[in-house]
C-alpha cells in the first residue's frame, strides 16, 4: 500500500470535509469529474452539496470564498492550474489578504494551486506563483515537498484563520510516494533539514528539494557534505533555521523553480546577507529558472529550470570561492 502526493492532498481534503462541517470545495470540474488532476475524486459523492463545480470565473471563485469565509465557512478553492490564479489575484491580494488587517476579523480560506513545470506544459500550465502571493501582506504561502507535508500542511492550512495559498507541485502528484499517511507533523511555519551537511547549505522548497538532494548525493562523491533545507512554508519564512544552517556551513545556495526577479530564493539570500553576513565564507548565491516564459519543448524546459545537474554546478561554484 503506497500513498502518492496527490493521494495525500485528496485524503487531507476528505478528512477536513468529514471532521469540519464548515469546509467545502469549489473549483472548475471538481465535482463529479473529480478535478483535472483527480484531487477531489469521489469527494462530491461522499459529501453532497459540499464539493461544487464552479463556472470558469477565477475572480468570482476567489471572491465567493472571501464572502463564505467572512460568514464563518472554511472554503477550499481549487485553481485548475496555478497559472490561472492570475485572473483571481485581485480578490486574493486585495480582498482576502486585507480583511484581517482592516476588520480584525479572520478570512480563513485555502487557495490550492497546482504549480510548477511538467514536460510539455509550456508557458501557461507550468508557473510557480508563490513570489507574487508572498509579496502581499496577509497571506500564508505553503510549498510542500513531501507526501507527509502535502497531507499535514493542507490540514493545517484549512484550520488556519488566515488565507493560505497552497502551492502543490504537479510533478510530484503521481510519482512521489510514501508508505502511509503521516501521524505527526513538523511544526507549522518551520523549515526542515532534509539532509545534514557541513560544507554548504542549499535552501529550497517544493519539487526542487528532490533535485537538491540528488545534487547533494553527487557532491558527496566529491567529498562535500551539502546540508539541504526545505523551507516548507515560504511565508512566513523560517529565517532562524536557515541562519542556523549557514552558521554550520558558512556557505549558501538558495534554489527556486520560479523566476529569478524577487521571490523566495532572493528573500533567503537577502536575509542571510543582512542578518548572517559574518557567518559567510563566500558570497551567497541563488539559482532559479531562466528569465523567460516557460518553454514547451522538453529540451528547452530541462535547460530552463534548475535541475540536479545545475544545482550541483551552482553548489561547486560557491564551494570553490
Amino acid at each position, binding site marked *: 500500500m503506497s500513498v502518492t502526493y496527490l493521494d495525500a492532498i485528496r485524503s487531507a481534503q476528505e478528512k477536513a470535509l468529514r471532521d469540519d462541517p464548515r469546509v467545502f470545495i469549489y473549483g472548475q470540474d471538481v465535482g463529479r469529474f473529480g478535478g483535472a488532476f483527480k484531487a477531489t475524486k469521489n469527494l462530491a459523492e461522499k459529501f453532497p452539496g459540499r464539493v461544487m463545480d464552479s463556472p470558469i470565473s477565477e*475572480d*468570482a471563485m476567489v*471572491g465567493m470564498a472571501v464572502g463564505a469565509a*467572512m460568514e464563518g465557512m472554511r472554503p477550499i478553492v481549487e485553481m485548475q492550474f496555478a497559472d490561472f490564479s492570475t485572473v483571481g489575484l*485581485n480578490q486574493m491580494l486585495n480582498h482576502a489578504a486585507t480583511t484581517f488587517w482592516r476588520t480584525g476579523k479572520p478570512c480563513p480560506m485555502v487557495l490550492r494551486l497546482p504549480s510548477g513545470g511538467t514536460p510539455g506544459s509550456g508557458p501557461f500550465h507550468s508557473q510557480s506563483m508563490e513570489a507574487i502571493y508572498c509579496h502581499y501582506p496577509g497571506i500564508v504561502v505553503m510549498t510542500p515537498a513531501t507526501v507527509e507535508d502535502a497531507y499535514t500542511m493542507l490540514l493545517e492550512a484549512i484550520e488556519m484563520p488566515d488565507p493560505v495559498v497552497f502551492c502543490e507541485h504537479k510533478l510530484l502528484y503521481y510519482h512521489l510516494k510514501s508508505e502511509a499517511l503521516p501521524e505527526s507533523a513538523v511544526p507549522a511555519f518551520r523549515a526542515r533539514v532534509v539532509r545534514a551537511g557541513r560544507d554548504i547549505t542549499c535552501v529550497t522548497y517544493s519539487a526542487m528539494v528532490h533535485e537538491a538532494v540528488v545534487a547533494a548525493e553527487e557532491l558527496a562523491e566529491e567529498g562535500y557534505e551539502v546540508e539541504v533545507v526545505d523551507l516548507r512554508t515560504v511565508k*512566513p519564512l523560517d529565517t532562524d533555521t536557515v541562519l542556523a544552517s549557514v552558521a554550520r556551513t558558512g556557505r549558501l545556495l538558495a534554489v527556486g523553480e520560479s523566476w529569478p526577479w524577487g521571490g523566495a530564493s532572493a528573500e533567503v539570500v537577502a536575509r542571510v546577507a543582512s542578518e548572517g553576513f559574518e557567518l559567510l565564507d563566500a558570497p551567497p548565491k541563488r539559482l532559479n529558472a531562466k528569465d523567460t516564459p516557460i518553454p514547451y519543448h522538453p529540451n528547452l524546459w530541462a535547460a530552463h529550470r534548475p535541475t540536479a545537474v545545475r544545482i550541483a554546478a551552482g553548489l561547486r561554484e560557491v564551494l570553490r570561492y
Partner: protein
Amino acid sequence: MAIRVAGALESKPKKGVVDPIELLGRTILRARVLEDKLGNLYRAGRIVGGVYLGKGQEALSGAGGLALRKGDIFAPLIRDMAGRLGFGEPMVDAVRAYLGSRLGPMKGRDGNIHRGDLTRGILPMISHLGAMVATVAGGLMAKRMKGEKGRVGLTCAGDGATSTGSFHEGLNLAAVEKLPLVVVVADNGYAYSTPNERQFACEDLVDRAKGYGVDGHGVDGTDPMACWKVLHYAVERAREGAGPQLVVGKLLRLCGHGEHDDGLYVEKKMKSSERGRDCLNVMEEGMKKRGQEKEWQGWREEAQREVEEAVAKVSAEPVPDPFEEDWRATQSAGMAEVMVAS
C-alpha cells in the same frame, strides 16, 4: 423581465402601520445632512483622504438598505450613506471612519467609504469595482450551507462597475447558484467623468438581466417611493427564492465624483432634465402636497442634531497610535514573531 414602476407618494399612512415615507424620508435626510457636514469637514481640512458623497442617489440607496432585515448581507459602494443608515449602520461609525477614530470599525487602518462591520453583515468594500458581487454571493452560499433560510444579500454598483469582469463573473455565478442576491446599479450617467456612451453600448443596463437569466427591474432613481416599491419587490423576490435580481436606477449624482472634483463634465442638459431632479426635493414636494411640511422640517432638524452630536463625540475620541499598533496582517500564531524577526 424588466418591470418599471411609476412611483407616487401614497395617501396618508394608517395608524399603527410603519410608514414607508417616514422611514425613507428620515433616512435620506440623515444621509444628506451627514454628507453635507462631511463635505464641510473635508474643506476645513479635518478629513484626510477622499470624500465621496451620494447626493442625489439617497432614495435608491436608502430604499435598498431599508428593504433588508437583520441577518441579511449588505455590501455598499461609495455613494451609499443612505443605504448604510437604512440598514442600521450607526451614524457615529461613519463619522469615526472619516475622522480616523481608534474606536471606529476600522481603527484608522482603513477609512471613509471602505468601512464595514462584519458582525452587522456590512461588508467593507474594496476599491476594485465589481468585487463585492461575488463576495456577497459567497456569503449567501455560506448561509445556504449553514441552513440559514430567508436571507438576502444586496450589493450596490455604479454604471462604470458593470463594465468589469468581476461584475460579470459575480452575477453569473450568483445566477448559476440561484442565490438570493440583489444587485442595485445606480446609473448616474458617468463613471467619474466617462459618459455612458464610452462605457457600454446597450440601450439600458437593465436589459442585461435577460442575458444573465435573472430578473431585471428599472426604476426612476429620483423618485423615492418608486425606489421603495421596486427595491422591496426585488428583495422579496430574492427572499422567496426567485434568484438574483438586477435593479437599475437612473439618476444623476448631484456632486463631483469626490469632493475634490467639480463635476463640470456633466452636461447641463442632463442636469436640467428629469434625471437631474434631487430626490430630496421630490420627497419634500410630496410631503408638502400631503400637508406634512412640518414633519419634514422636524426630521431635518433631528438629523442635524444627530450629525452635530456624532461629530462632537468623535472629535473627542482617540486617534490611532503607531506605537500601539501591532502591525500584524495575519492572525496565525507564530507568524508575527517570525516576520518581526526579519
